[in-house]
């Protein structure tokens, strides 16, 4: 048996797992701290890719887009949170509807300006590395590396800085945090902005690998939510492990003879769904999270 398709798919799964982890981490932070079930997260990922496309058209530089798009989307996230979502905190059903509305508006705005035709973005890092007798695009390894670096950075911010301490305090008990003088509403805004920026960063990173259109965030939203729950709410480590294993599983399954990509996706989703039924609070979560 030839093992190189498995190695190839394992690499793909590994790379995509890091991107998924970024998306899931944003979702998890937002839900864990602000209580908002953000249905617009997939649309923010899409918006990141689309703004990235525009920036690349204007400047011709992918790396500028990678910085500019998350910044714009992050600011937009802060505005959306402050203007529309703040009054709805702690009402999960209401936040679902409101963020779904935001998703509709974002998607439609993109459809009206960007158009319905999927666009592709050229890889900013054209090199290939050879694995056995196959070659693999170096850019994908850059994606995994950048995602990993950003995740480590977020971890450091969360666990080693004052702002991170605030965020964790608000997560544990917002009332108590207020009495201690922590600017709770600022923390909410920052977290929502950070979550949005993470989604947009993932969108720009993924844009040379996938095709960019107004609907690219729809199905990834459900996958990311599943990863958040399987990993355990608010657990950085859990989200990463769940994202990597989901992605590896899906890609390895697709390397099996007779299994096409859609079937592999179905099988991986079923496996994760079954895991959720077995452990409703996820692998690293607890009942109170």
């Amino acid at each position, binding site marked *: 048996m030839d093992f190189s398709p498995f190695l190839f798919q394992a690499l793909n799964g590994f790379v995509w797992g890091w991107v998924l982890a970024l998306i899931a981490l944003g979702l998890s932070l937002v839900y864990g701290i602000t209580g908002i*079930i953000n249905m617009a997260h997939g649309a923010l990922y899409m918006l990141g890719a689309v703004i990235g496309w525009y920036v690349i058209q204007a400047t011709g530089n992918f790396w500028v887009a990678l910085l500019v798009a998350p910044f714009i989307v992050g600011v937009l996230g802060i505005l959306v949170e402050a203007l529309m979502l703040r009054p709805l905190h702690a009402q999960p059903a209401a936040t*679902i509807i409101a963020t779904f509305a935001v998703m*509709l508006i974002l998607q439609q705005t993109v459809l009206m300006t960007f158009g319905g035709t999927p666009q592709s973005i050229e890889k900013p890092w054209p090199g290939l590395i050879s694995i056995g007798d196959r070659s693999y695009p170096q850019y994908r390894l850059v994606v995994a590396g950048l995602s990993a670096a950003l995740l480590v950075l977020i971890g450091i911010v969360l666990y080693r800085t004052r702002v991170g301490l605030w965020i964790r305090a608000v997560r544990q008990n917002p009332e108590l945090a207020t009495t201690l003088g922590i600017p709770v509403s600022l923390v909410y805004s920052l977290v929502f902005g950070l979550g949005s920026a993470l989604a947009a960063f993932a969108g720009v990173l993924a844009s040379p690998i996938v095709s960019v259109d107004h609907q690219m965030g729809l199905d990834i939203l459900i996958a990311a939510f*599943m990863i958040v729950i399987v990993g355990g709410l608010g657990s950085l480590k859990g989200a990463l492990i769940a994202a990597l294993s989901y992605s590896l599983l899906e890609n390895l399954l697709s390397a099996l003879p007779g299994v096409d990509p*859609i079937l592999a996706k179905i099988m991986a989703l079923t496996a994760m769904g079954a895991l959720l*039924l077995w452990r409703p609070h996820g692998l690293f979560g607890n009942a109170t999270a």
Partner: protein
Amino acid sequence: MSVSIKLVLLLLITVLLALAPSFISVFQLSLLSSIFIWGLFALSFDLLFGYTGLLSLGHSVYFGLGAYGAALSIKHFQLEWWAGLGIGLLLALMVAALIGFLVVRVKSHGFIIVTAVTSLICFLLAQRWNGLTGGDDGISFSVAPIALGSIEWPFSSQIVRYYFALSILLLCFIFLWWLTRTPLGQAWKLIRENEGRAEMIGYPVTQLKFVVFVIAGTFAGLAGATYALTNRFVWAGLFHWIISADGIIWTLFGGAGTLIGALLGTGALFSIKEWLSEVWKTGYPLLVGSVLLLLIRFAPNGLMGLARSFFERRGRS
């Protein structure tokens, strides 16, 4: 409003709708037929969300199954319309029982995600086996006319489709209205209001949730089968969770937990969509998005909530 006034109103609206084909255009009839079918879907969702508080993003699965059950059995086995309808309904019922048995154990956000995953899986399955389902392009088929003795009503006639959808909606509405007033319906409301207390008092919460999940799924299946019969066309997109989200929007817009609100919401949003498609083709999602944001902020109980507070204010002055 007392029950007798509501019954009189229901009767009046029924008579009005029954006479409608004599004074409105064929286009308006087709719009109303769609409203009846999707209104039934919203009704079934209201049972789940408005009455029991279960926010499911997987409700489209049962609409899709009902539609495909009817479409495929009629296409491949040349069944009569009622047999197709029955098969669609049964298929939705069985799968709702199977999935419901598993998912009602998961609580709050977990339930939303697990049900969303079920619709994503079914959507992908329908795309994967496009030889059977037609995938995104869908399949069309023809149905033998409704025959009663020597009289035949073909589904190709808009008036037949209108009365067909109207009768099914009316029967379901009356049944569901009765159902929500039974002790069972009251127990669902208790779960919505306070699940912990319901459990304390000794209600079998998981079983009650299972029952409402299956009933709502079955009615969604009936709506799907009716959709298939009247459109004679089905496609994989019917399974997508975005269809469930539409159900949420219609229900909330009209007012969740009122049944009639689900119908009003569907009617209002369908009419707005039709009207907008002439004026500003791409504007509908923008308008719906903005309206939803305002609604959730200022009128969380939807049209019915607005109407209720209006009447209460008038009653006080």
